[in-house]
Every structure is written in structure tokens, then in C-alpha cells.
């Protein structure tokens, strides 16, 4: 195998109603879900949301082999129960709800197999499961169009404040929100091997997939630029939490699949990416490193202090520093990435996955792009302003600094950093550069638009998405590994389990959908 793997992206958007502090962030987030539900008419006919099926959620299961006791968990870790948002709770948090009649919609399952919901105080789009990094880029970008459609709908709705959404990861005031990656792995791989093989890679991969940030420190009060949005918020090497004491390697062990066979590696270290090359490398290179870990071919090295080095790498946008390893030697972030790339080249050549004619295509593309980017980072990093997100952002900031003689603490640079990630093409500065042909695309705009409504063909997301498309009004609940139907003639709910991520594909289920437009017939056909 190699760059081919079941994977998916989660994006929590920054949410802001400009000019007012009157509204509670969770309530604003429900309006995003509600607006998209009206936009698509999904579940509108049944008058409610598609509830999430929490049966198989287990956020306190630790991959190292135990479960955190519920009593000692932070309340934000209890993501396995339905969040109930009441007017009283909003009032407690100091917010106001002007539209008492508007429904508080927390969750939707989309016709493309994704989930759109309210996570903590942010709207989140979790992409459908895909099998390769290009599709990960495509269905993640589709989420930005989903968010855009919701924003447009809200802007046209009287009585609801205009809402801006930002694909970034911090407010520069000590708060960070995540962009997570998920990778399916065989459970047989010892977790300590994952920690050892991945940590040095994660400490340094930001030089390819960081989104860039103006400000240093969690509150952004330090003056300057750094490569990532997230690095300053990480405080531990390994751990279960995602909202506090954030770890480089997250041990949440909710496989959302047959637990004896699989684990889902939940990666919380990354930045949200708009630039497709950065996003592609984020998923593609990580998938390759996981493949090496599974086969015992990952490089062996260890930083003396991974958390410290993670931060130092992010702050060193001139790529000048070396970082201390546990054996007393020093390496640069670029050295470490070359070490991983060269090991990946050898690994993929020996298993045939990168072969130009007989390989899978994706692996060779990841290796070639990885090499191209590392070579350019070693000679002229600013030559990557059309490919890497942090370089593109830095280049724009430097152009402003040159033209207007600004220091790094000029508030306009902070605004450029923020507005870079506004998801509206007429306001977002990333989109401005894209429109001017200054940023490279890897997937076509048409294919991203199609991915808003269509699921990937080659995972169980196809089954989930087609269920919503065909029988949405009868789907009362769903999750990554289930779809629950309410059938008018039957008293009991019908729960269909989808524990195998590579089943439920178009190839396996298309005829079932095409041949059974009626739900009762469809369910009977499933039972055969």
C-alpha cells in the first residue's frame, strides 16, 4: 500500500458576527447548521435535524490501553453525549438569543457523506472518509463551500446577524480550535511504535503544511511571524486531551470501525489549510510515514524535547536553526524531513507502490511533490509562495511591510493574517491570490463543487451519502459506522451498521440504491 489509506479531515471554523458581542458562539454555530439545512432541504421535510448516533463513541478510551475515569475528565472531553443547548445555558454564558423561534440545530449528515455540526463553540465540517490525499484535499475544500453556502444563506436571512467564518486555528487571544486528520490503521501496530515514528515527523512537517501566523505565544502578543497557527498551543508529547494540555500525539481511541481490526489515529497537531499543495502534503506524507511505521522502515531519531522543538521550528521561518536530539546531535527541520523522504522513497520503491507504470499513482505524486518542496525550501523558500500556505501568507505580509514600512505588530498585518482565511472569495485573501493565478491548484474547482453533494465512491461514505440523498427524511440518526432509519410501517428503528470503512462503496451498493427507490424495498434488499 502506501499513500493509499482511509483518511478524513475535520475543520472547526472560527466564527464571528462583526460589530457585536451580543451573540453566543454556540448559538451562532447552530445557525450555520440550520442555514445549510435550509439550503439543502435535508431533513427540512421531517422538521428536524439528523441526530448523531452516539452508540459507538468512546472519547475516554486511551490507545495506550485504558480508559480515563469520567469523573476526572474535563467536561469538554465528554463528546459522546448529545449536547443540549438551552436558553438558560446561553444566558449563563452571558449571551443573548434574539430569535427564540429559530431552532437550535446541532447536527447534520450531508449527502456527500460528511458531518456538519456544532463542536464546542464552533461549526465543524468533518469530511467523508476518502482513500487518498487528493480526495482528502477535495472533500475538505468541499467543506469550505458548504460553509460558504451557509454564510450566504445567513446573510440573506432577516433577523439573523451576518456571520463570518474563518478557516484558521486561533483568535490570537489564547484560544485555539482544531483542524484534525484521521487515518485508519491496523490495530496490530503497537502504539509505542506510532509515537516513536511519528513524533519527529510531526515536530518538523510544519515547514510544508503550516498555515502561517502573525504573533508569537498563545495570546499572540509576541511580535513576529511564525510558520504555524497551532504550535504554541501544544504542551505535551502524548495524551488523550484535545482541548487542554494538547499533545503532539493524541491517544483518543475511537475506531469508528471494527475495533478488533482497526484503530483510527486522531491527529490534532495540524493547521487548517486553504492552499491545496500544503493540504495534499499534510495527508500524503503522513500516510506514507504511517505505512513505514507499520512495516518497521521509519527513520529512528528522537528530539531531546519534542514540545520545545515543535515551537522552535514554527518560530524559525528563516529555516536557520538546528534542534537538539536525544543523542546530543543537532538537526534542522529540513534535515529531518529529508530523512523521512529518503526512507519513504526506499520503502515505496521496494514495495512497488511508487512505480511509474504499475504503482498506484498517488504515491509517486506525493514523493515527487515532497522532494520538489524540500529542495526549494533548501535553496529559496520564498520561491514556494505559489504552493505552501505559510510562504504565500508571509510573501503577502512582506509585500505590505515593504510598501507601507510596517513593523510586525502593526494591526493591519494581524488583519491580513485573519482575513487570509475568510471563506468568502470576495473577502478572503487566499482566494484573492488564487483568483490572480498566484496559487497552485491540485484539484479542479468543478470537482470540489461536485464533492459538496456527492460522496467519494470508494468508501462507506458512499453508502451514508446515498442514504441521505435517497431517504434523508427517514434517516433519524447516523454516525461514521451506522445509519438509522425510521420506517413508517415499522415500530422499531432500523439501525444499519457500517463497521468496514472500505465496504458500502459505489461498486458494492450502487445497484441496491438504483434498483430500490422505495425505502421498504431498499431495507428488504439489504437484509437479503
Amino acid at each position, binding site marked *: 500500500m502506501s499513500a*493509499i489509506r482511509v483518511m478524513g479531515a475535520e475543520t472547526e471554523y472560527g466564527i464571528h458576527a462583526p460589530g457585536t458581542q451580543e451573540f453566543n458562539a454556540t448559538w451562532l454555530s447552530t445557525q450555520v447548521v440550520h442555514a445549510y439545512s435550509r439550503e439543502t432541504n435535508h431533513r427540512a421535510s421531517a422538521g428536524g435535524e439528523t441526530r448523531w448516533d452516539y452508540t459507538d463513541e468512546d472519547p475516554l478510551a486511551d490507545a495506550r490501553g485504558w480508559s480515563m475515569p469520567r469523573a476526572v475528565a474535563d467536561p469538554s472531553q465528554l463528546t459522546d453525549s448529545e449536547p443540549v443547548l438551552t436558553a438558560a445555558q446561553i444566558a449563563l454564558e452571558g449571551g443573548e438569543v434574539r430569535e427564540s423561534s429559530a431552532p437550535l440545530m446541532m447536527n447534520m449528515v450531508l449527502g456527500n457523506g460528511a458531518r456538519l455540526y456544532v463542536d464546542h463553540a464552533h461549526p465543524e465540517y468533518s469530511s467523508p472518509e476518502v482513500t487518498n490525499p487528493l480526495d482528502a484535499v477535495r472533500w475538505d475544500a468541499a467543506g469550505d463551500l458548504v460553509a460558504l453556502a451557509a454564510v450566504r444563506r445567513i446573510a440573506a436571512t432577516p433577523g439573523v446577524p451576518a456571520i463570518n467564518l474563518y478557516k484558521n486555528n486561533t483568535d490570537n487571544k489564547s*484560544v*485555539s480550535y482544531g483542524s484534525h486528520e484521521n487515518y485508519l490503521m491496523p490495530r496490530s501496530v503497537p502504539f509505542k511504535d506510532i509515537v516513536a515514528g511519528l513524533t519527529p515527523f510531526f515536530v518538523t512537517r510544519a515547514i510544508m503544511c503550516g498555515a502561517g501566523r502573525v504573533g508569537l505565544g498563545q495570546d499572540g502578543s509576541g511580535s513576529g511571524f511564525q510558520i504555524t497557527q497551532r504550535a504554541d498551543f501544544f504542551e505535551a508529547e502524548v495524551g488523550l486531551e484535545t482541548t487542554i494540555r494538547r499533545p503532539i500525539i493524541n491517544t483518543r481511541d475511537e475506531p469508528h470501525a471494527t475495533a478488533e481490526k482497526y484503530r483510527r489515529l486522531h491527529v490534532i497537531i495540524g493547521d487548517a489549510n486553504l492552499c491545496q499543495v500544503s493540504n495534499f502534503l499534510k495527508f500524503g506524507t503522513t500516510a506514507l510515514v504511517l505505512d513505514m511505521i507499520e512495516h518497521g522502515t521509519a527513520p529512528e531519531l528522537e528530539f531531546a524535547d519534542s514540545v520545545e522543538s515543535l515551537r522552535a521550528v514554527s518560530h524559525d521561518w528563516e529555516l536557520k536553526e538546528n534542534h537538539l536530539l536525544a543523542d546530543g546531535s543537532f538537526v534542522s527541520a529540513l534535515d529531518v524531513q529529508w530523512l523521512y523522504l529518503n526512507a519513504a522513497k526506499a520503502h515505496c520503491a521496494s514495495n512497488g507502490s511508487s512505480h511509474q507504470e504499475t504503482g498506484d*499513482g*498517488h504515491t509517486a505524486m506525493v514523493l515527487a511533490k515532497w522532494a520538489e518542496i524540500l529542495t526549494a525550501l533548501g535553496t529559496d523558500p520564498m520561491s514556494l509562495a505559489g504552493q505552501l500556505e505559510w510562504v504565500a501568507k508571509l510573501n503577502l505580509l512582506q509585500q505590505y511591510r515593504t*510598501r507601507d514600512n510596517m513593523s510586525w505588530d502593526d494591526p*493591519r498585518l494581524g488583519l491580513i493574517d485573519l482575513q487570509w482565511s475568510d471563506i468568502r472569495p470576495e473577502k478572503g485573501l487566499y482566494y*484573492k491570490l488564487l483568483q490572480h493565478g498566484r496559487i*497552485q491548484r491540485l484539484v479542479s474547482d468543478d470537482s470540489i463543487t461536485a464533492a459538496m453533494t456527492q460522496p467519494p465512491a470508494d468508501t462507506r461514505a458512499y453508502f451514508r451519502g446515498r442514504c441521505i440523498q435517497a431517504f434523508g427524511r427517514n434517516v433519524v440518526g447516523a454516525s461514521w459506522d451506522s445509519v438509522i432509519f425510521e420506517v413508517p410501517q415499522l415500530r422499531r428503528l432500523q439501525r444499519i451498521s457500517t463497521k468496514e470503512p472500505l465496504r458500502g462503496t459505489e461498486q458494492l451498493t450502487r445497484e441496491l440504491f438504483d434498483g430500490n427507490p422505495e425505502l421498504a424495498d431498499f431495507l428488504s434488499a439489504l437484509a437479503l
Partner: protein
Amino acid sequence: MASQEQKNVSSRTEEEHVDELPVPTPAPDSAAAQAATSGVDDLLDEIDGVLEVNAEEFVRGFVQKGGQ
């Protein structure tokens, strides 16, 4: 089934290569460099026009609650 999946994605990849757009590379001669500079100025002028007014206040108002 796994090999079938791989074939599917493999053919899709070839299709994607067609989508790929070249990155504009700045020309080395001075006339082109000058054109590039005025291109940057035009771009910044356009961005000036879409930036939120009162940068300091807008940035200060962007306050988020905790997330993952």
C-alpha cells in the same frame, strides 16, 4: 476489493494531472521584474479595497471560545 479500489483511484489521478496548473515563475530580466512589481502593487491595491475597515478594532473584536 482493495486492488479494485486502487485501480479506480489510479485512473482518477491521471485525470487530475491534467488539472494541474503551472505556478507562474517570475522572469529574470529587468523589464519583466518591473512588470512583476507593478503586478504586486495592483494586487495590494485590490486587497486594500477588500480589507475590513479599522483593522485594530476588527482584530480586537475577533474573540473565540475554546475548541479542540
